[in-house]
């Protein structure tokens, strides 16, 4: 469906060249939602804009349905763009057009008949629950409502691919869940694809199938949502998802960090199991619970616990950990410097964040 191959993009500025995207490749399959996360300035927007040629890559290829978009003539590219919807962070609605005319616009480009357009607009407005606002102008809408109009406009032509740059960030939690679930349903039913940038881990976790983490113009980690949240590999990923995931960073657990602290990741049925008391009984260990949470993924639950063992005998702990591993629990030892690293990257993400 969509494949990017070795995309490079740099900007010339008076202060020198900025390499915004460096050698990025990825694929998105039909029916898949692909998330892009990363700190501010990582190059996410530049990358997503390279997909529909709003930004021309300096080198590399963008295959959409087998066609390399970088090679197309202007009319050919326009035709392809009509099959790629885009939602922008700042909505970019036409201020002098009503909600109806905003949503009609892409359909008019396709030369659809008046009746067809009217029908489709009604359908879309129902979809984003804004039927009472057909005649309103964008200035009369709230941020979340504008975003919903933008989503309706992007979906109007039933695009095969939807690009979303922070396209759901202005929605309130309830609407956000509603829209995200509707997007998920659309993707599943029509086998379209979505590439979405988000700063909200809740969003990424809820609807993405796979996630790529960007830093300094590169993808530093790419994985299924499940694996990424269960076992993030790169320290930046850890910082990004933990900073939102774990209210209190493990490093702030202070004195405990020096002791035997472990992060235990559970998935599926283990979430509901009384593993800790089981462990405590079986190995006669005193287990200290430090922090924990359960996160809801699309169709499963992921839980994690930070625990410390009040036990001096390393063999006994090793035994307990081996048992946990056999139960498919992901184990990560929290080291002192690991804690510092966590703390450091967290500060960065606050400073560098929006």
């Amino acid at each position, binding site marked *: 469906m969509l494949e990017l191959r070795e995309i490079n993009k740099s900007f010339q500025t008076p202060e020198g060249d900025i390499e915004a995207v460096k050698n990025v490749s990825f694929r998105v399959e039909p029916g898949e939602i692909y998330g892009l996360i990363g700190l501010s300035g990582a190059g996410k927007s530049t990358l997503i804009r390279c997909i*529909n040629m*709003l930004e021309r890559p300096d080198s590399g290829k963008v295959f959409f349905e087998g066609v390399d978009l970088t090679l197309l003539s*202007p*009319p050919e*590219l*326009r*035709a*392809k*763009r*009509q099959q*790629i919807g*885009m939602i*922008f962070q*700042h909505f*970019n*609605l*036409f*201020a*002098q*057009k009503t909600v109806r005319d905003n949503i009609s*616009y*892409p359909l*008019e*480009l396709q030369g659809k008949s008046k009746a067809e357009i009217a029908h489709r607009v009604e359908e879309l407005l129902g979809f984003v629950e804004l039927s009472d606002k057909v005649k309103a*102008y*964008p*200035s009369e809408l709230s941020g979340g409502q504008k975003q919903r109009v933008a989503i309706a406009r992007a979906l109007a*032509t039933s695009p095969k691919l939807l690009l979303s740059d922070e396209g759901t960030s202005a929605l309130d939690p309830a609407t956000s869940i509603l829209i995200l679930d509707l997007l998920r349903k659309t993707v599943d039913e029509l086998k379209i694809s979505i590439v979405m940038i988000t700063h909200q881990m809740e969003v990424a976790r809820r609807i993405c199938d796979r996630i790529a983490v960007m830093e300094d113009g590169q993808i530093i980690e790419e994985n299924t949502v499940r694996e990424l949240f269960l076992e993030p590999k790169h320290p930046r990923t850890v910082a990004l998802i933990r900073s939102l995931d774990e209210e209190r960073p493990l490093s702030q657990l202070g004195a405990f960090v020096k002791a035997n602290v472990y992060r235990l990741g559970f998935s599926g049925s283990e979430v509901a199991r009384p593993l800790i008391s089981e462990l405590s009984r079986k190995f006669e260990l005193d287990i200290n619970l430090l922090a924990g949470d359960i996160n809801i993924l699309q169709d499963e639950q992921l839980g994690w616990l930070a625990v410390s063992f009040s036990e001096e005998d390393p063999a006994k702990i090793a035994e307990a950990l081996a048992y946990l591993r056999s139960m498919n629990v992901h184990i990560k030892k929290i080291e002192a410097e690991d804690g510092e690293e966590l703390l450091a990257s967290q500060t960065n993400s606050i400073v560098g964040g929006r």
Partner: protein
Amino acid sequence: MGDYLQGLNETLVMVGVSSFFSIAIGLPLGIVLVLTHPDGIASRPRLYRIMDVIINLFRSFPFIILIVVFRPLSELLTGRSSGTPAMTVSLTLSAIPFIARIMETSINEVGTGVIEAALAMGTSIPRLITKVLVPESLPALIKGMTTTVINIIGYSAMAGVVGGGGLGDLAIRWGLYNRHTEKLVVAVLMIVALVQIVQLLGNALSRAIDHR
């Protein structure tokens, strides 16, 4: 009474015709400026720079000088080097750069985001102009054109000095030089009223269609 009516008529013709033609020529020129701007969608930096310099040049000349500069051209187009038709040509030519600039700044106010959204949907450049750039910038455009028409009214009064006809001519030649004070006062009041009407209409129209 006949003097006033004739003066008003000449002024209206001068202002109306030159407004019409300067807008008809200035607006497309402004669009070309936007498109060819170094950061524009059809960027032609060299062409932009040349037009930019010419426009600034003509905008910085006093109107009286422009009348002289355009005299040969006016004569070519109207067969006379003075009088209302010749003055209309000069007015038109001097208003074009203003209108072009107003079009350019009005469109720039639309914002790159909206233009990008339109392009991302697969909009062609002609369509972008007619369906996005012009409708989105229309309120600002009308405000700017109102100012330009008012400037044209002012210039048309000045044209009286060189025998261009109209209310300005009446005020200066009869009122000032021949000491018919009441003609001066009435002609000036008529010009003021004309400016007010244009201003009010322009503002009202701009506000009525602005949904921002």
